[in-house]
């Protein structure tokens, strides 16, 4: 028994729903009590979908348990097939139905339905949402394709050359309730198009059963969302010999690597590595002088495996941040995340307890958090800016505008959305340069209105706080401190939005020095002390 207040992932049958709802012509009969129908709102409200997910719940009640729940399952299967006339049927059960052991998949298979029926086993007491999505996609693809047998040795990923056609690939993994999948698919399509590579099928997002049946026609597979696609890609490789890409194209380096990997799989010439500079603004924006202030900014990263790994690489290599925490709730991805953390000199945080993430975050004292909606709340509580990089989904994560994470445009989006929560570089420079100006002196109205008060200490880095090292305020707390008039006057010259922090730092320094009075000299001593 584990105590959970908030969870990062739903149960595995919600993962199965994501696959069914992503596709056209696939219906899912879920043996579940009525409470489980809440899952519909994940799609209709969070994703703002204009139709209900294609799911028929049996919604059994306590009084049904003494009767024939098997007959109830069959009745719902029959009704669903008659009403929706799907091209394929998924049959599964939620946590409660698992306990009553009706085996709805076997029941449906025995009904003589004239359509493919895929029975799902979704162990609700040991697995979670992403696992359920991956398992469902794998079972569905395998169920629809296992009768096609070209044999693994026949497959030549370079066959497009002899057949005098363009190379083609499948994009596997994007689904509803996946982070920015809708836009990532568009972006990757464009990217591949620009390299003369065709997209054969996208599965499951928007796919029909016929698209799944066409999967073997591709030369290679792009494993776009490993959490969802990896078992499926593995099976396609074993069964049809189709190789697949391992790099998730999020960020400049990863997109470049992805292109290199895919080109090599397809026997294409290695693409020009300078493409990134031409196609994305991130490299130049990060190199421009305005970004100097980003140097060494301390970031804390937590999310699903793929996005956390991508974020760590971008943060460290492409924006010049310092990663001070890295973790994931995807246990399936624990190994690569641990390895990446080790490379950064960190120990990875593998947990699905958001409170321990919050504790680690507080401990690492970052200047920016890249996390999920849960970390956004924790960061807010701690007064740290945050950008959301990963599921679990929130209605905010389904923006109206085009906002991919992958490919060149994805890198642009990432630059903006990570950097904007921080104070802008130019602003910081100007504040440093003009901090003695009358505008920053007390009694002058600020454009920030009511926010322009001395106690509004913003956690932005300043000249007194360049290393981001917050001294321990508990040190020598018992010492009574007094600011001299001269010290106070000097303090007042400091812009209001950093004054609180400077005051705290200086007092702490004074305590460490055993001083009882703080004059302007102490203030400058403290400034020198904290500049590293």
């Amino acid at each position, binding site marked *: *028994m584990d105590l959970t207040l908030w969870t990062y992932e739903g149960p595995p049958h919600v993962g199965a729903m994501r696959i069914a709802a992503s596709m056209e012509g696939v219906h899912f009969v879920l043996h579940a009590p009525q409470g489980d129908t809440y899952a519909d709102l994940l799609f209709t409200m969070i994703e703002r979908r204009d139709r209900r997910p294609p799911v028929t719940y049996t919604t059994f009640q306590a009084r049904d348990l003494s009767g024939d729940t098997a007959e109830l399952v069959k009745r719902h299967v029959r*009704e669903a097939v008659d009403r929706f006339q799907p091209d394929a049927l998924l049959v599964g059960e939620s946590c409660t139905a698992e*306990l009553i052991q009706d085996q709805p998949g076997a029941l449906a298979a025995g009904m003589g339905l004239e359509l493919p029926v895929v029975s799902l086993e979704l162990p609700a007491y040991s697995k979670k949402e992403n696992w359920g999505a991956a398992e469902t996609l794998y079972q569905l693809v395998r169920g629809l394709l296992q009768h096609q047998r070209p044999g693994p040795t026949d497959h030549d990923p370079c066959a497009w050359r002899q057949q005098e056609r363009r190379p083609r690939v499948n994009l596997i993994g994007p689904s509803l309730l996946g982070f920015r999948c809708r836009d990532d698919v568009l972006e990757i399509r464009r990217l591949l198009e620009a390299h003369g590579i065709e997209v054969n099928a996208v599965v499951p997002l928007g796919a029909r059963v016929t698209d799944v049946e066409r999967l073997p026609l591709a030369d290679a597979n792009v494993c776009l969302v490993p959490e969802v696609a990896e078992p499926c890609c593995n099976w396609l490789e074993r069964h049809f010999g189709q190789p697949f890409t391992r790099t998730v194209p999020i960020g400049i380096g990863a997109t470049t690597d992805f292109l290199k990997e895919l080109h090599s799989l397809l026997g294409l010439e290695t693409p020009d590595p300078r493409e990134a500079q031409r196609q994305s603004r991130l490299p130049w924006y990060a190199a421009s002088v305005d970004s100097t202030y980003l140097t060494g900014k301390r970031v804390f990263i937590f999310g699903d495996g793929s996005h956390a790994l991508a974020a760590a690489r971008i943060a460290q290599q492409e924006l010049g941040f310092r990663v001070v925490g890295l973790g994931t709730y995807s246990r399936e991805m624990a190994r690569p995340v641990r390895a990446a953390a080790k490379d950064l000199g960190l120990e990875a945080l593998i947990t699905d307890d958001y409170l321990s993430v919050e504790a680690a975050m507080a401990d690492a004292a970052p200047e920016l958090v890249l996390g999920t909606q849960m970390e956004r709340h924790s960061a807010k509580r701690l007064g740290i800016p945050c950008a959301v990089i990963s599921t679990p989904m929130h209605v905010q994560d389904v923006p109206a505008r085009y906002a991919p994470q992958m490919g060149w445009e994805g890198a642009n989006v990432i630059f903006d959305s990570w950097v904007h929560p921080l104070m802008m570089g130019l602003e910081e420079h100007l504040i440093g340069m003009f901090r003695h100006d009358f505008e920053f002196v007390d009694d002058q109205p600020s454009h920030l209105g009511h926010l322009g008060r001395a106690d509004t200490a913003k956690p932005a880095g300043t000249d007194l706080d360049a290393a981001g090292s917050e001294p321990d305020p508990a040190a020598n707390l018992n010492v009574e401190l007094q600011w001299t008039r001269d010290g106070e006057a000097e303090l007042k010259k400091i812009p209001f939005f950093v004054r609180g922090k400077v005051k705290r730092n200086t007092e702490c320094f004074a305590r460490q020095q055993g001083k009882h009075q703080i004059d302007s000299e102490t203030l400058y001593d403290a400034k020198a002390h904290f500049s590293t």
Partner: protein
Amino acid sequence: MLTNLRKESGPREVFCGLTSIVWLHRRMPDAFFLVVGSRTCAHLIQSAAGVMIFAEPRFGTAILSERDLAGLADAQEELDRVARDLLQRRPEIRTLFLVGSCPSEVIKLDLARAAERLNASLSGRVRVVNYSGSGIETTFTQGEDGALAALVPTLPARDEPQLLLVGTLAHAVEDRLITLFQRMGIETVRSFPPRLSTDCPPVGRGTRMLLCQPYLSDTSRQLQARGAELIRAPYPLGAEGSRLWMEAAARAWGIDEPIIHATLDPLSARARQALEPHRQRLQGKRIVLLPDSQLELPLARFLHRECGMELVEVGTPYLHRDLMEEELKLLPADTRVVEGQHVEQQLDRVRQAHPDLVVCGMGLANPLEAEGIATKWSIELVFSPIHGIDQAGDLAELFSRPLVRHGALAFA
């Protein structure tokens, strides 16, 4: 009595009783709701709460794992451990609700025994009670009924005369209602649930109670078993219903008619004024209420009688004939009332009738909007302060706003 009443059975689309935790934990800030269930339960409450609440919530889930299913004796021990950890972490908690779920009901995990054991070991520091919010037994608002019914045995016994308002109300509404009752001369007015779980009202032979919510059948039965007398009335939704509800209490107290009139007439006049602009928008419009909160019948009565709406169909997940008696009398005799649900067939009827407004759960709203039908989330009606004569205008506004919005948007 109703002539057009039917029962329907089939796939349902209704929240389970766990969802009521979302408003109960706000009512009683010194209580914690621990669901004993699955990952689905945790995910449900998180999703139903809509936004992740900024502060640490006062509800959580003890998620059953395979190990717990394998050995039920161990599950009891595990539950003790989780409850103790929780209370150590949250020392301010005074009442712990152990909430049964579908899985814990199916495996017959004995939460009553767990509560008893924890009560003994915590020796009065924290009171532990249990109820079921499982979806195989309860829908949506019935969770509140279960939670309150579980508290009834803990209420002190006292026979002093008092008016007990039963059912969660918004604080402001509650204060206002109490003021009005006292203005008419009913001195002792108490609420159940209280604002603090430790501040429970007494109950006994002097207790006469008004139900603020229509879904409290178990609670009301148990309070009656403790000596309380139920005052029958329509529910305090809309100016008319609220007035009848208040008058019923006043008459039970033998308050003189002139005092009742002097107190309530100005309120009724003001409500008519507040309702008028909404009535103009709603009059003649056709509405379907899909089954969700059991508030559907009183709302339909209000929308028909005070806002002039045409009732195409009124669904309710469960029809408690006894508690709804006064409401049913006020509905047009041919109102189509459907108890239970076959969600697909019901949606077919909605599409066919193409009403101007549908009151429904969150899973159905956007799909209906996409079909050009304005909707109102039924969950808003359990969260918003809508009870009482003074709130009649606000209540009507909840229904007129979707229509105003549909009229306001133009993309051509």
